[in-house]
């Protein structure tokens, strides 16, 4: 075993990358749940975004177009969920689970001819001299634009929820859809918009895996990140910054266990591979002592006559 083989700078830069798909998926789901909807289809929307983004990037040669397509693909799949839960008033848990299964199958079908291809690479942003600052430069200023977009998204969602009227209305709908309806707010319209936002975010997260983190296409490559995102939202008590923290924790431990595997630590690989999931959940369970933070209408079907 040779721990000196782990380069701390590369390690930190690597875990920022590893955390990014999770950040996108979690912040999208956080907005959805704040509106009172529980969408368990995150995994399905991520994998759909991953293949839509991958295919588009390969066909057009533009990774940014790929990301745009991923957002559209994730949102399109979430539209199906919105139709099921908001129009036909189907059960949200069952609809979400079927969305995940459907997304996994659909992505495998689309992806048949893309196995083994390398996608075009998205270049890092040129920060000029900033990248040459020792330690901080290689960690913070050697990434692609999507990674920074993810962090900006967390800040944006936090600010919108906390300071704007739109955010207040979204929280109100999630808190009591009956009261919101009585005051004249369009509950279904607001929830559908939130679901679409969540779908687009999940799609971006998926594409970040297939275009940047891995970068290639294999079936089921999101490997449960969508489920971790769901757990992250709950354990982060629906707070954007805490979700970001949880994502970095998960990304950090994932990166660490990969490095440890590389360094040949004498722990069975299976234990190392499961460690990020276990540690993230334990830490977030400890953090989530304030249980009253859940939106009160979460998962409940709204019908105007009730």
């Amino acid at each position, binding site marked *: 075993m040779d721990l000196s083989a782990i380069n701390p700078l590369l390690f930190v830069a690597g875990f920022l990358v590893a955390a990014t798909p999770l950040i996108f998926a979690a912040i999208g789901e956080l907005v959805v749940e704040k509106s009172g909807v529980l969408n368990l289809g995150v995994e399905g929307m991520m994998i759909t975004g991953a293949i839509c983004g991958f295919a588009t990037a390969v066909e057009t040669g533009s990774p940014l177009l790929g990301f745009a397509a991923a957002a559209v693909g994730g949102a399109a799949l979430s539209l199906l969920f919105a139709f099921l839960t908001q129009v036909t008033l189907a059960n949200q848990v069952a609809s979400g689970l079927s969305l995940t299964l459907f997304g996994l199958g659909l992505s495998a079908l689309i992806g048949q001819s893309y196995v083994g291809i390398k996608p075009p690479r998205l270049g890092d942003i040129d920060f000029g001299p900033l990248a040459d600052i020792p330690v901080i430069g290689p960690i913070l200023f050697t990434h692609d634009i999507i990674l920074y977009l993810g962090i900006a998204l967390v800040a944006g969602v936090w600010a919108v929820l906390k300071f704007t009227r739109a955010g*207040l209305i979204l929280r*109100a709908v999630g*808190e*009591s859809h009956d*009261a919101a309806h009585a*005051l*004249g*707010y369009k509950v279904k319209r607001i929830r559908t918009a939130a679901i679409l936002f969540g779908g687009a975010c999940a799609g971006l997260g998926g594409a970040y895996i297939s275009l940047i983190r891995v970068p290639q296409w294999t079936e089921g490559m999101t490997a449960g990140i969508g489920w971790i995102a769901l757990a992250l939202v709950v354990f982060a008590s629906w707070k954007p910054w805490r979700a970001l923290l949880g994502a970095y924790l998960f990304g950090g431990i994932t990166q660490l266990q990969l490095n440890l595997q590389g360094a040949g630590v004498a722990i069975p690989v299976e234990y190392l591979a499961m460690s990020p999931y276990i540690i993230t959940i334990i830490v977030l369970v400890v953090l989530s002592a304030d249980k009253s933070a859940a*939106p*009160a209408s979460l998962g409940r079907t709204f019908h105007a006559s009730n």
Partner: protein
Amino acid sequence: MTDYLLDLSGVTKAYPGVVANDDVSLRIAPGEVHALLGENGAGKSTLVKMIYGLVKPDAGQMQMHGQSYAPTDPHAARQAGVGMVFQHFSLFDALSVAENIALGMENPPKMRELSQQIRDVSDTYGLPLSPDRIVGDLSAGERQRVEIIRCLLQEPKLLIMDEPTSVLTPQEVEILFKTLRKLSAEGTAILYISHKLEEIRSLCDSATILRLGKVVGHCTPRETSARDMAEMMVGSALKTPTRESKEPGKVVLTLDKLSARSDSAFGMPLREISVEVRCGEVLGIGGVAGNGQDELLNALSGETLVSPGMLTFDGRDIGLFGPTSRRALGVLTAPEERLGHAAVPDMSLTENAMLTGAAREGLERGGMLDWAKARSFAEKIIEAFDVRTPGPGNAARSLSGGNLQKFVIGREVLQRPELLVVNQPTWGVDASAAAAIRQALLDLASGGTAVIVISQDLDELMEISDNFAALNEGRLSPPRPAQGLTVEEIGLMMGGAHGMEVADV
């Protein structure tokens, strides 16, 4: 007719199978306090929802200040100067007072300015309220203030109030009425819905009475007796519950410093409740909602277990008995929430009868259910309590509130309880059904059962209780004989006005 603020003529609204409003006409002048009376299902709520833009009328005209008025949604209604205070508060528990108020405004100012406006309005009308508090922590009276201030900030020309006093102490009602009279003097018209006829007599200038969706009469409440108004609503003479007087028997239930935590985040813990209940006694427990009523019922039913020594029934310590063991002993309960707590909404009446009747009625043998017997038990309840339903196979959800209430009370009464605890037995039930339920409780007590009635309806408690006690912040006042208690004394037992001030402007 431009003297009228609001002029409704021939308004009709039908839902599948029921005409909620049939050719209803109504006129309100500026500054008038107008009462809307009627039993459950008479169409009062549908009518005000049309005025507030939540429901569209099928036919008929609405005019405001002589102009056609047809709000498509509550936003339009608010812009036209209509404000509404809801029966079930339309508030968001997890949000602050200021956020709740901003949600009900068309063009809310910045939060800091809004907080200042809230303080100004609450000072002007004697309704103290801190903008930063979380609504879930407020008392019922304070919550209502949030709704009223939300309306007042819009400077409404018409204020609709749907049963505003059902959750207030007498002192809080007095403060509310002072505020309403002040508003009316300033020219704001008020459309006031309530079941409490004495309040209407003291507050309202005129009244419209609805029955089965139709206007059946108008009256001037100050010149009409409450009984006459009630009979106009029901359409027939009212029976007042009666009972034979009887000496109370031996003590059957003893609560000794009963304390319990609440299961819900915004609940109220019980604090050292001590009281004795005798055979044949009706103990009335009053108090504003949220002061421990649900928790007390749960502690008595066995849904919440309490420490040994706190709860003794017939010489036995039952604090650690669950609901089924307590039922077997004869301790029966009927909780407040009809749909979801007292009855399973999507199950049939037979199944619901089985759920609480299994042990005492012998509907279950060795784990096997005797459906034939359960069905005849359900039929017995339906017949004895005049429950209007096609049959015991119908789902509990399909019954109207009053009918289901008769069913869930009847189900317990017919099981020959030794002790019956009911919470809000006539909540949302019209006058004739309420009288029938109260009579059943009194008959039960005459037969030697101890009855505890938890209710927010003080008139009801005064009518049927032998002794009266009040719950306030989880504590129970010492019981006093109900005969001769004055409204002021009751109000003080209930905790007075919860720190509210009277508008003195």
